[in-house]
């Protein structure tokens, strides 16, 4: 799985970079996002709800993201 390292980056950069990376990928692709920004946990959940994608927190500062829509 591709790893997107956003450690040390502040909101809204992790979500912006995630959206950029996913743009060129087909539906059902997965990305492992690393982010230690305190806003990332709530904002990735909100981002998934708003854009119709899926996010799972898989440990400290790590999120598994699945692209579900184009």
């Amino acid at each position, binding site marked *: 799985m591709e790893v997107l390292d956003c450690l040390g980056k502040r*909101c*809204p950069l992790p*979500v912006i970079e995630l959206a950029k990376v996913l743009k060129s990928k087909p539906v059902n692709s997965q990305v492992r996002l690393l982010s230690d920004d*305190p*806003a990332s946990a709530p*904002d990735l*959940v*909100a981002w998934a*709800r*708003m854009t119709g994608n899926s996010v799972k927190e898989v440990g400290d500062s790590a999120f598994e993201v699945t692209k579900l829509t184009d």
Partner: protein
Amino acid sequence: MALPHIFEVSWPDPTKLGVDSKSAAILLNEARETFSGHLGVRSDEISFLGEPNLGFHLALSGLLSPNSRLVYSNIDRMEIFAIAQSHPNLQLAASAIGEIDFKGCKISDVVSLQLCNRETGIIQVGRPENCAELFVDATASGTRIRLPENWSAALWDSTSWAGPTGLGVLAISKRAKWTNPLPHLDGRVNPGPTSLPLIVASALAIDSWVADEKNLSEKISAINSEIRTYITTKIPDSDLAPGGADHLLSASFLYVNAEQLVTMLADKGFAVDSGSACNSTNMEPSHVLAALGTLTQGNIRLTIHHATSFEEVKAFLEVLEHTVAELRA
């Protein structure tokens, strides 16, 4: 009465002897009666605070005994989170629309109830029925929502009726088992003295605010709907926090840096607040937005004042739409 004149006539200490002090005492008593009438509490239950947020500690720490449990919610003010740290406590989680279920409260609990959330405008419909003491946070609701019958202590902020900043009104019910948590020698609730000119100015403000509210509440409500509709239909990837009170509104925009958004709106003449992490002193996002599941990035909080006009709002919404698009480009 204009503010400079208030300062001229209310300089003496109302507790001293002498003609000037007597007229100052009359001014203070009149102000007390004014607040008593609008807030629905007895005038001898009222204390004034020069630091409104001190009221959370005065009220709650005074109601709590060392072993009693503090029940509060995850959308309460951070001042209440701070008090909970030194007491047995239970934090209740608000639903996605901000509703709190108080059924788990015990008869021995001290409960904190926020009538209106100042970030989002959520009006709390949940009411604690069975508890030892009930603290009511009325800092955002002002005179809009009546106190529940079983209140023990309540706190208001003068800014909620467009009064001067730096003045809180604390009421402690004669029925409440309250002991002063501050070192004290007499029966006063706060060390004082609180600025009499501010108290008088705030009393004048609450009188005119209540009179205006009757005529202007429909306009404020229409402006709120207009803003909500515009953001939902014209600005993509936006997220509105659940609301309730017409004068408050919180909206977030995906992929937008709130600090830049707030600064650019300020440059164009619009003063808005934000609950995003980049706008807070501790770099943490708003705990209220996080608790509700609302997006915390690119957040703005709006307060609609009595004087806010439709023209201003239209101009603001166009600027907002363009600024969000510019920041995303």
